[in-house]
C-alpha cells in the first residue's frame, strides 16, 4: 500500500509522582479503598478553592525543557466543561490557549536508523478524573461505581505534531518520550497502571499530497504493543475505506485488544463543545528566567546525550549505548560496574546479554536485580584470573542472580573452580586418548577437526571446568 502515506500524531497523558494532588492536599497514592484519598476540594464541594501545587509547575517546566520546548513566561488555567460522573465539578481544570510549554521536539530513529525529529506541539498541566466501573446489564439496571481517589492527581498532557509516518515510528516516539520522562524522575510512566496513557490521531493521504486526510482518534491502547497494532489496523482500515470509495468519518474509535480492531464509539457531537474559559479560582503563573535556570540545573543528563557520551567515553558500539541508556537505572548500573571493572565492552556484553535475559525471563526490572554492579565486576575479575571459565561463568552468574550470593561463594559451593593445573588436565588427556584411538589417529593423519572432538571429550569429563586454552595447548603437545 505504498500509494498512501499514514500521518500520525500522539496525545500522551502522564501522571506526575507528587505526594499530594494538583490543587489540594489529598494523597496521590495509587489504589486503596475507594473514595479514601479525597477532600472537599477534589470532590468539588461548594465553597472550596483550589491552590496549585508548586511541584507540578516545576515538573512541567522540567519536561518542557527536556523536550526542547519554549517555556511560557506567563500561563494560566482554564475550565473545560463536560458532564460525566468521573468529574465531580462538571469541569476539568486544564490549560487551553496558554500552555506552560510549547514548540519542542524529540528525536527517534526511522526504519533505516536515521534520526527523525518529531515535533512537540504543547505540554500542559491538568487534573485527572475519577475512575468509573460499569456494572449490571441492560437487562437488569446498568449502573456505574465512582471512585474519586484519582480525581485531582496531576497530569501533563503532551501533544505531538502529526510527524510520524508508521506504526513503528509512533511506538518509537512513545518509547523515547517515556524514557526521557523517566530520566527526569517526574513520573514512573507505567502504562499498565495508567500513569502513562496514549491516544493516537491518524489519517492517510496519497503519497506526495500536502493536505491532510480526515483523521480519527484512537483510544484505549494499554500497551506499547497495543499502540503499534491499533495504529496499523486503523491505517489499513482507512486505506481500505478510500480504495472502496467510502468516506472516512471523523470520529473517536476505541481499540479492542481481544478482537484486534478499532470500533467507533458512540459519542454525541455536543460532547466536544467544552466551553473553555479562564479558571477564576486560580491566579496566573509567571515563570521568571531565574526559575527556569534553577530547573535547568536540576535537569539530569538525558538519554540522547548519555548515549553519545557512552559511545565516546567507553568506546562501545552505538547499539550497545542505545540499549544501556534505555533506562536511567540500567545506565547507572552499567556505569557503576565499569567504574570497578573498566573493560567497558565486556561489561556491556554481560549486562545486555545474561543480565537483561534473566531480568526478562523473571519479568523483573534492573532495580530488582539481586546481582549488584560490584558483584558482576567481581565475577568478571574471576574470569580474567582464570578461576572460572567464560562458559561456566554463565552458570555462576545464573546462580548469583537467583541467590544474590557473591561469585566467589557460588564457585566454591558448586565446585566450579576452573582446573588450571597441568597434572590434573594431563591425567584426563591420557584417559581420553586411550578411549578414543580413532580420532587420535585421524588427527595425526592431518584431520584437524578431530582435535575439537577430543577437546570436547576432555571438557565433558571435567564437567566444563578445565581451562580450555590449557587443554588445547597440552593436547596438541601430547599428540605431536
Amino acid at each position, binding site marked *: 500500500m505504498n500509494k498512501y502515506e499514514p500521518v500520525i500524531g500522539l496525545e500522551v497523558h502522564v501522571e506526575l509522582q507528587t505526594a499530594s494532588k494538583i490543587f489540594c492536599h489529598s494523597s496521590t497514592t495509587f489504589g486503596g479503598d475507594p*473514595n479514601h484519598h479525597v477532600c472537599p476540594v477534589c470532590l468539588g464541594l461548594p465553597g472550596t478553592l483550589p491552590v496549585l501545587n508548586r511541584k507540578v509547575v516545576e515538573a512541567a517546566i522540567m519536561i518542557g525543557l527536556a523536550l526542547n520546548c519554549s517555556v511560557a513566561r506567563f500561563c494560566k488555567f482554564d475550565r473545560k466543561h463536560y458532564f460525566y460522573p468521573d468529574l465531580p465539578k462538571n469541569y476539568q481544570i486544564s490549560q487551553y490557549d496558554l500552555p506552560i510549554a510549547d514548540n519542542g521536539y524529540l528525536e527517534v530513529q526511522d526504519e533505516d536508523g536515521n534520526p527523525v525529529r518529531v515535533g512537540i506541539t504543547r505540554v500542559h498541566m491538568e487534573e485527572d478524573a475519577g475512575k468509573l466501573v460499569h456494572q449490571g446489564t441492560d437487562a437488569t439496571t446498568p449502573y456505574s461505581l465512582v471512585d474519586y481517589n484519582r480525581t485531582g492527581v496531576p497530569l501533563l498532557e503532551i501533544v505531538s505534531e502529526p510527524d510520524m509516518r508508521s506504526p513503528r515510528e509512533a511506538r518509537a516516539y512513545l518509547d523515547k518520550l517515556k524514557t526521557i520522562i523517566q530520566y527526569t524522575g517526574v513520573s514512573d510512566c507505567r502504562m499498565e497502571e495508567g500513569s502513562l496513557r496514549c491516544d493516537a490521531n491518524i489519517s492517510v493521504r496519497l503519497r506526495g499530497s500536502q493536505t491532510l486526510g480526515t483523521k480519527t482518534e484512537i483510544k484505549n491502547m494499554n500497551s506499547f504493543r497495543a499502540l503499534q497494532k491499533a495504529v496499523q489496523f486503523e491505517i489499513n482500515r482507512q486505506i481500505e475505506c478510500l480504495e472502496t470509495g467510502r468516506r472516512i468519518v471523523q470520529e473517536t474509535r476505541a481499540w479492542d485488544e481481544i478482537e484486534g480492531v478499532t470500533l467507533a464509539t458512540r459519542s454525541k457531537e455536543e460532547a466536544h463543545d467544552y466551553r473553555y474559559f479562564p479558571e477564576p479560582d486560580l491566579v496566573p503563573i509567571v515563570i521568571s528566567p531565574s526559575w527556569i535556570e534553577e530547573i535547568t540545573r536540576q535537569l539530569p543528563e538525558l538519554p540522547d546525550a548519555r548515549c553519545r557520551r557512552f559511545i565516546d567515553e567507553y568506546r562501545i558500539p552505538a547499539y550497545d549505548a542505545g540499549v544501556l541508556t534505555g533506562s536511567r537505572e540500567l545506565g547507572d548500573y552499567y556505569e557503576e560496574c565499569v567504574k570497578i571493572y573498566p573493560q567497558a565492552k565486556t561489561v556491556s556484553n554481560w549486562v545486555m546479554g545474561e543480565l537483561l535475559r534473566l531480568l526478562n525471563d523473571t519479568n523483573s526490572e534492573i532495580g530488582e536485580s539481586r546481582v549488584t554492579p560490584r558483584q558482576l565486576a567481581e565475577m568478571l575479575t574471576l574470569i580474567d584470573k582464570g578461576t572460572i571459565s567464560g562458559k561456566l561463568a554463565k552458570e555462576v552468574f545464573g546462580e548469583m542472580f537467583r541467590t544474590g550470593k557473591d561469585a566467589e561463594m557460588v564457585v566454591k559451593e558448586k565446585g566450579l573452580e576452573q582446573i588450571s593445573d597441568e597434572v590434573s588436565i594431563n591425567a584426563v588427556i591420557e584417559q581420553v586418548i586411550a578411549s578414543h584411538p580413532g580420532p587420535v589417529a585421524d588427527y595425526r593423519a592431518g584431520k584437524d577437526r578431530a582435535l575439537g572432538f577430543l577437546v570436547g571429550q576432555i571438557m565433558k569429563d571435567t564437567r566444563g571446568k578445565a581451562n580450555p586454552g590449557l587443554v588445547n595447548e597440552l593436547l596438541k603437545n601430547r599428540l605431536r
Partner: protein
Amino acid sequence: MLSREVVDHVALLARLELSEEEKERYTTQLSNILSYAERLQELDTGDVTPMAHVLPLQNVFRHDVVGEHLPSEDTLANAPDRQGNNFKVPRII
C-alpha cells in the same frame, strides 16, 4: 437574533429540559443579553492585554504536602446511592 438551534444546543450542554414556551422566551432574553454585551465590541482593545484574572496576583502555590482526607461517611453523606464506599450512579456511556 439568536437562533433556536443555538438555544437548543446550549440547553443540551447545560442538561436543561426546556418547554417550547421557555425556548421561545429564552431565545428573546438571551438575544437581548448578548446584544447588550456586544456594545463592548465598539471599544478599541488593540492595546489591552487580555485579562487572565481580576486580582493583581500571581504565583500562589502550596507545598507538596499531604494533609488529612475526609472521613468516608462525610464523603458519601450526600451520595444519591452507594455501594460500599463507591458512589453509585446510573450508567452513562
